[in-house]
């Protein structure tokens, strides 16, 4: 298993789930579209009202189902539409990251980014760089429930 | 391999790492240039020619040798273009073609160290040493 994880050169179809808050990052993703800023297609966006709506179980479920990376994007600290939601998200994800490390999953597979509604370019850049990170890390074989394999 | 003028310009832009397309031809580089009065092609024009894929008359211009490499143009540019680097890149390509060092460090007289500003020495080596 570890051997599989350390052979990143093997081509694989990455699967990345992005949770985007409705007010900033989802709009940022829309702007990336309007500005035709391309990023890898294996990133699939799920819309949530706020980054604080993202339950760690959603992320673990994604990993269980075979996602290679999960990214949570929210408003910049201080700019949350709901005043403080992104702070909750930040704390929760910090805890989740240490739990992932404990489980033996590279915590780089989970990322939290702040992308505002005006940052279409940043959205594309962040997504591209995350996809590269995941590509370098290789396939997620640690947490994946083989019964979910399609 | 023989490059066309356009390809050569593109190559110089690539080597220099300068985004000439950011230039909006405001001319602030030329306005700030202390050696501008003696140049046949001013810095803003230099950038313009490269943007448009022309390099032959740049290689023949005296701008390459009048430029002091003081980087005032680069510091003043409102668009983050670096004309000094572009001039440097064309200069290097010319020097490489002629393939000969015309300034040897060992041959420099000792007293020159005290008499000349260091910037002049550095830029002389940039210009005449491959």
């Amino acid at each position, binding site marked *: 298993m570890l051997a599989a994880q350390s052979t990143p050169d093997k081509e694989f179809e990455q699967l990345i789930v992005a949770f985007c808050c409705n007010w900033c990052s989802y709009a940022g993703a829309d702007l990336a579209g309007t500005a035709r800023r391309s990023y890898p297609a294996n990133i699939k966006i799920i819309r949530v009202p706020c980054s604080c709506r993202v339950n760690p179980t959603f992320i673990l479920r994604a990993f269980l189902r075979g996602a290679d990376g999960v990214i949570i994007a929210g408003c910049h600290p201080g*700019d949350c539409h709901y*005043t403080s939601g992104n702070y909750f998200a930040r704390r929760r994800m910090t805890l989740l990251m240490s739990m992932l490390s404990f489980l033996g999953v590279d915590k780089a597979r989970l990322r939290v980014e702040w992308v*505002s509604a005006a940052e279409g370019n940043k959205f594309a850049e962040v997504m591209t760089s995350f996809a590269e990170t995941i590509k370098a890390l290789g396939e997620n074989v640690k947490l994946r429930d083989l019964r979910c394999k399609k | 391999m023989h490059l066309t003028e356009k390809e050569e310009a593109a190559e110089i832009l690539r080597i220099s790492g300068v985004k000439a397309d950011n230039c909006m031809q405001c001319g*602030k580089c030329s*306005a700030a240039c202390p050696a501008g009065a003696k140049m046949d092609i001013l810095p803003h024009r230099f950038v313009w020619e490269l943007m448009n894929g022309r390099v032959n008359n740049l290689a023949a211009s005296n701008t390459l040798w009048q430029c002091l490499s003081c980087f005032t143009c680069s510091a003043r540019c409102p668009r983050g273009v670096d004309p000094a680097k572009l001039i440097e890149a064309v200069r290097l390509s010319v020097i490489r073609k002629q393939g000969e060092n015309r300034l040897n460090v060992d041959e420099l007289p000792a007293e020159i160290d005290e008499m000349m500003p260091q910037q002049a020495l550095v830029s002389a080596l940039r210009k005449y040493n491959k």
Partner: protein
Amino acid sequence: MQKIGVFVCWCGSNIAATVDVARVAESVKSIPGVAFAADYRYMCSEGGQELMQKAIKDYGLSRVVVCSCSPRMHEATFRKAAQAAGLNPYLVEIANIREHCSWVHKDKEVATAKAIALAKAAIAKVKLNTPLVSGESAVVKRALVIGGGIAGLQTALDIAEAGYKVDIVEKTPSIGGKMSQLDKTFPTLDCSACILTPKMVEAATHENITIYTYSEIEKVSGYVGQFEAVIRKKARSVSVDRCSGCGICSEKCPSKKAKSEFDQGLRNRSAIYIPFAQAIPNVPVIDRENCLKFQTGKCGICAKVCPAGAIEYEQEDELVTQKYGAIVLATGFEPIDMAKFGEFNYEYCPDVITSLEFERLTNAAGPTQGHLVRLSDGKKPKSIVFVSCVGSRDTTERGKTYCSKICCMYNAKHAMLVKEKYPDIDVQVFYIDVRTPGKSFDEFYRRAVEEYGVQYTKGMVGKITEEGDHLLVHASDVASGAQLSVPADMVVLATAIKPAADARKLATMLTASIDTNDFFTEAHPKLRPVESPTAGIFLSGVCQGPKDIPETVAQAGAAAVKVLGLLSKDKLLTNPCVATCNEQTCSGCLACEKVCPYGAISAEYKLVNVKGLKERRLIAQVNEALCQGCGACTVACPSGAMDLKGFSNKQIMAEVDAIC
């Protein structure tokens, strides 16, 4: 079994060029529950909506998925269409296959596969959607306008004229803003004060307008229709009620070293001062930093000379709390700081000035009574150079990347005003581009050249040096390639403008979004230009982006119309996507209460059915009027009793499962 209808939009070629829409429709047909799938050229068009409505009726659809543009664009459209066909609007889901797919991926195979995946996720979610009904909340029939410049005044006047109460909160001691500092306005060259002061008086005397000057917003809470703002009325140290505005206090004040903010520091003012002659209210303030009484305790002359006994040294800041239905941001702009632009020698040469300083110099009410003189020696200049784009269109960290928009026109205005008054003065303008789109704008600029003989030279100024008693302007004439050193007696820099310094603080307070330059973001750049994405917050004037006066006034009126549209409603439909607590599984730990930013969760003892027996238990209760639907509580809840309607745990989990 659900009967789901899936509608795939072509969006002309926007989607269809990169996504095989027919294949998307075909591939979802086999999904259990999908009863109907079709593609259509423009789903948002009348034809598209009719197609959906017909399918709902013909196939008895219980759920609808539209694969189209962003839900931020047309979710409301499709919900309304579904509702008209008898379906609960919240049983519609959108798969964003335009902004998140066809526009960002070029390969048709890849984009089609992604579009199918996104459609599947939306189908998985919609199966779990439940019918939701919006609640209602009342609208406070009062608006708050932050900023008392021309933008704020115009918005306030338009709202007040329609019969609603408006409060204007202005940071400085008087309303009027930047426009009150200007001399003439382009392209008509009419006097700025002459058109502004009547508006100031109208606002001040309007029965529906309350003006808080020398005041700032301390705190804002609440939501659209029900905002509550705390306004800090800074201590003026002068009673507004008793003061007659005679001005004796300022005259006798011994401390006259403070720089006049209104005159851009070109003259000094006393510590107790009225910013300018037409100030509203015409009541002085004491600048405590510079007042001898406050600094040393030994003065009190103003109190002695005041015939009305209006001086109140003991006055303290006062906090006023008021409820509002809508808030308009009209915080305006300020010129950028020139400290980083050493090459122009602004800090060391008194004859290098900014355009706003020039406005004060040419203003008849200004520090020189309108006589154009050099600040260094008081002599009339023989030649003036204007430099445009100082800090504008500058991508380095010194400047601003955007075009400040107003400079080309005011440069032409200044040049013409000089030539009009003093035909013997040589005027030269250095520019990068002359940008004059606008009614009668280009004609105005050409008049400066053709009628007044102003010399326009294309080329940015590289540096300004002092040469004896005059300045030398070093520039390159880009058109001819000549290197110029132009002697000038005065240089005027058209400095870039930036949003007011407190815009960011306000944005945070109001959760209104702001861009990287600190301009407020509009809800849609084309279709909703005066609304902030945050409901109930509107934008007026330069705080949204650089604008001249006519545009500002137009936008101010547009913002007022949007406010009126809101205030004229008695009730607002609230977002039904709010938190809900499962009483069966709630343990009453109230972890949710602690994270709720709106105080929408409270504890209540309730009779709950437990295994057939009624039991009195502590339960979390959600106030649906206060809940904004962020979902923070759902994650904090250890038992999973808290859920969010419209974005439930099961729904999001289903989306995850569909994607992975």
